[in-house]
């Protein structure tokens, strides 16, 4: 149905960010936490909108912005992700001297960009959304202005990010040339009908894969990930590891699920993604083994997870992909929340050495962190296990046995570095005192919510699976 209501989620987020931007001027520095509460309120409103529009199928701008169930589901999990990120940021910002009002503004702008991306099926609109997201992200990465690492992260992200964007635009241009269209369904149709511009289209598609491959951090377009993740403020890292990855896969999903339906035309592309998935899983996990900085470990782990998600694309199983993303959201933000919990004024504990004996000194933080790590490693009864199980068994059903073997072996390797953190937390004597600021209720709320999410998805995934299956029923878009 063509109605202006379709703009509601985007508009409310943009309105929130504008309001926060104005209010910031009038608020004293110590009162900035109100900005967070306002943002949270608006996020709840947007989420309520998503719930309300379920099954309504609203769209606007000639269908260029359409809230199908799948879009709504993605919107919903992105809003949840932002919500959790704000919760884990509130204390962090004052502790680490990054308490700028822009923080929430930029975060909300980034969210609006992501919502645009997931609710459109036109590559140009998606590109615009992507840029809204990226520009906010560049600024967010460099928010700790006095911190050299943060600046370095910003400049690296910015240069490499725009570099990748250029490839994306060039790819869209080629696709436009080959099919005279920028809307994904028409592009896919055009590519499959096999015009004289076949090669042009193929190259265009390849360039688009590169552009989004950068965002979701697949090898070999992943080089920025560890540095940016390490340098950016930790809550922002949590945001980067979840948000852009989710939207990147949402777009790849829209392109490739219909594209792969025509098995003959798509063989070449299929092989390409196969290779990317395989090397991403292998390289991500192998390099992670050597890291000693917890943020870097999680960065490489997020690269590896992009590989598993790629397997889901190849298995052409939307349901398992969406489920994986949902589980990944909770376990990854949770893991970062636990990392943030180990911080005090002007200092964060990020080296593996710092984690010695944490499990006994701070039992709650240690225990929840351990659960998230176990979930990332894919052990039952957590959401991570079920997600991986789901993806891999879908892949076996598609006959991707060798890819699954690679995936299973790679995740076997991953167990080492996840468990290494647990070993440090529980099986090593601390060599020095780790003092943390324990007075952080919003962070503990976030930890609890993530824990709940991971366990809910692992033990009672039924309801969410029903929602997801309703969401993907709309396919193809």
């Amino acid at each position: 149905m063509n109605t202006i209501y379709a703009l509601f989620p985007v508009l409310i987020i943009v309105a929130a960010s504008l309001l926060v931007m104005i209010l910031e001027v009038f608020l004293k520095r110590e009162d900035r936490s109100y900005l967070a509460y306002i943002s949270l309120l608006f996020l709840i409103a947007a989420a309520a909108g998503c719930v309300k529009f379920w099954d309504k199928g609203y769209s606007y701008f000639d269908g260029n912005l359409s809230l199908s169930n799948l879009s709504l589901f993605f919107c919903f999990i992105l809003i949840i992700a932002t919500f959790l990120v704000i919760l884990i940021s509130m204390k962090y910002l004052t502790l680490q001297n990054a308490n700028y009002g822009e923080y929430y503004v930029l975060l909300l702008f980034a969210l609006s960009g992501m919502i645009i991306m997931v609710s459109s099926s036109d590559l140009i609109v998606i590109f615009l959304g992507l840029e809204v997201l990226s520009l906010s992200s560049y600024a967010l990465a460099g928010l700790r202005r006095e911190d050299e690492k943060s600046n370095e992260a910003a400049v690296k992200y910015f240069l490499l990010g725009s570099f990748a964007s250029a490839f994306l635009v060039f790819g869209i241009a080629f696709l436009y040339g080959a099919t005279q269209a920028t809307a994904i369904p028409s592009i896919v149709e055009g590519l499959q009908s096999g015009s004289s511009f076949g090669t042009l289209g193929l190259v265009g598609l390849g360039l688009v894969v590169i552009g989004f491959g950068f965002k979701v951090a697949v090898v070999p377009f992943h080089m920025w990930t560890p540095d940016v993740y390490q340098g950016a403020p930790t809550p922002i890292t949590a945001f980067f590891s979840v948000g852009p990855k989710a939207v990147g896969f949402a777009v790849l999903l829209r392109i490739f699920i219909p594209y792969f339906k025509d098995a003959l035309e798509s063989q070449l592309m299929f092989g390409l993604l196969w290779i990317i998935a395989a090397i991403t899983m292998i390289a991500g996990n192998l390099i992670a083994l050597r890291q000693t900085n917890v943020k870097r470990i999680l960065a490489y782990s997020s690269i590896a997870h992009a590989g598993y998600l790629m397997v889901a694309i190849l298995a052409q199983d939307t349901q398992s992909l969406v489920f994986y993303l949902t589980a990944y959201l909770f376990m990854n933000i949770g893991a970062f929340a636990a990392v943030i919990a180990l911080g005090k004024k002007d200092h964060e504990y990020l080296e593996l050495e710092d984690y010695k004996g944490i499990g006994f000194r701070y039992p709650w933080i240690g225990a929840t962190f351990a659960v998230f790590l176990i979930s990332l490693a894919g052990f039952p009864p957590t959401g991570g296990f079920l997600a991986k199980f789901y993806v891999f068994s879908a892949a076996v059903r598609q006959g991707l046995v060798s890819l699954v073997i690679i995936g299973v072996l790679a995740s076997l390797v991953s167990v080492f570095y996840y468990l290494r953190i647990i070993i440090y937390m529980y099986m090593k004597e601390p060599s020095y005192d780790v003092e943390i600021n324990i007075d952080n209720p919003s962070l503990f709320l976030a930890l609890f919510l993530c824990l709940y999410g991971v366990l809910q998805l692992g033990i009672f995934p039924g309801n969410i699976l029903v929602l997801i299956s309703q969401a993907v029923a709309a396919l193809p878009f």
Partner: protein
Amino acid sequence: MTDYFWLIPFIPALSTLILVLFGQKLPKKYVSFQACFAVFASFAISVISFIGLLQTSHEHLPIIKNLFSWIHAGSFQADLALQLDPLSSIMTLVVTGVGFLIHVYSVGYMADDEGYTRYFTYLNLFTFAMLILVMGSNLVVMFVGWEGVGLCSYLLIGFWFDKHSAANAGKKAFIVNRIGDAAFLLGIFFIFTHIGSGEFSVINAAIGGGAITQGLATLIAILLFVGATGKSAQIPLYIWLPDAMEGPTPVSALIHAATMVTAGVYMVARMNVLFTFSGSANSLVAIIGAVTAVFAATMALTQNDIKRVLAYSTISQIGYMFIGCGVGAYAAGMFHLFTHAFFKSLLFLAAGSVIHALSGELNMQKMGGLRKYLPLTYPTFLIGAIAIAGIPFLSGFFSKDAILTSAYANGQYLVWALGIFCAVLTAFYMFRLIFLTFFGNERLEPEAKKHLHESPPAMTIPLVLLAFFSIVAGYVGLPVVVGKDLNFFGRFLEPVIHQAHEVHLSLGTEWMLILISIAVAVTGIFIAWVFYIKNPKIPKNIVARFPGLYKLLYNKYYVDEIYNTLFVNSTIKGSEIVYDHFDLKVIDGVVNGSAKTTNFFGKVLSYFQTGYIKDYALIFLLGVILLLGYLLF
């Protein structure tokens, strides 16, 4: 009476939860009471359910309790469901029964340990995971338990993590098990793909209905069996179990003897329709089982560490169970699992009592003459040894005989012969252990002798009870020669075990087989007596007389050297390996080597991560070129 069987796993789970959350604040006495009581309550329900099951007619089996629909979308379907049938009932009885006694024993054994609460938390958690494993009504739930017990085993092996060797042993167990688990998971995926469900009843029906070809069944069965070799420590993935003895002794008794390591046997028995249908997978199981049995037994012959002897003995006895499954006598395999749980945990606990008495001494060469100091440990240990050696009227005799008879009846004469040979070895090394420990001269360290004492009642009472069961447990499955319908155990399992065909031997042959196994057991004991009591010089003389043979055994048939000359191209290392202890260095090397290789590649790959934007762009561009090149050419 079976209404509440689904509570069995959740009582230990609840106890774990309480211990995790409040354990540090609770008094020690309460912790031990709660941990033991939780397992006892499970045991009580298991018994009640078992009685209820006896009164249930076969048509109503298995009794399934669907807790909730776990994965339920599209083509997937897996419920979090527990089932009660004869197979799972026996397993719950063993896990909770033996588990309870070991919990009680631990109260005494771990009394002075700092990690007391942590220990019982892990132990309860293990009980929960193991019960989930055996009661799950589908493969996914079983896998959850499967991973869970692995995790607990890892935690408990590395329990004394400040000991370097313990941490390493934990790691090794973990790596080896993950390899097995990966194969197991692949097998599950295949079943999901081709049958569309993980429910055991559905799988059995589908295989009966010809849903998969025999080749595919063999592939799946072998993948599952690789998982079993990891968990149950069979060739080629057995190497972790001897090292696992670094954990506390009650843990070795519970996890690495009675319950977890037999999970593989349980799984094969559970999937018996698949294995029988495949046929060739079954033969593989029997052969691997037989070879492992003999191989591990020979390695036990020359060990001096009392726990390691028992560890190799466990590997060997599990080999027997796999022989049973492999020749199609699943009931016999399960029977041996059942009796083995009693006598092997008895042996471990008794060994623990000896170690406790000697303030931690493990080397049998430094024991001797202990029987007068340990008036309760000695007879119970002896009962365990007689039971495992296969002397008539004790439990091990009946179960081992059932397996060997079935092997013979199925025409697997080679497997049978290996089994018989292994029986001689078993009797020999068990009595070697007895004689070295309890007889002969005292070779104690003076310091150990000062503290020498019998263990407290919390430890000896479980020993006595287990000894009792080691004697009587065999009488639930008497052989045909005693009476036609006295094999209650086999009949109880009939609804679960879908036997393809049953071969009957004449009574005469049966008697002959029984006499042969008695004869070999007695021979083994006799040789041990001659060697270590009558003429203790003989072992040394033999070593002197047949240095080649001794070396051959000591080096387990020069497998290492053969591998070395073949693969490593080094004969110099041979002399080093002579002094090294028993362990398949090659497999060990592969594990360590692969760790090194992955580390190496990680190093190479992270070398590219230079920090320069330029280099990142270069790799990006290379990626682009390769990708476009792939698309265009």
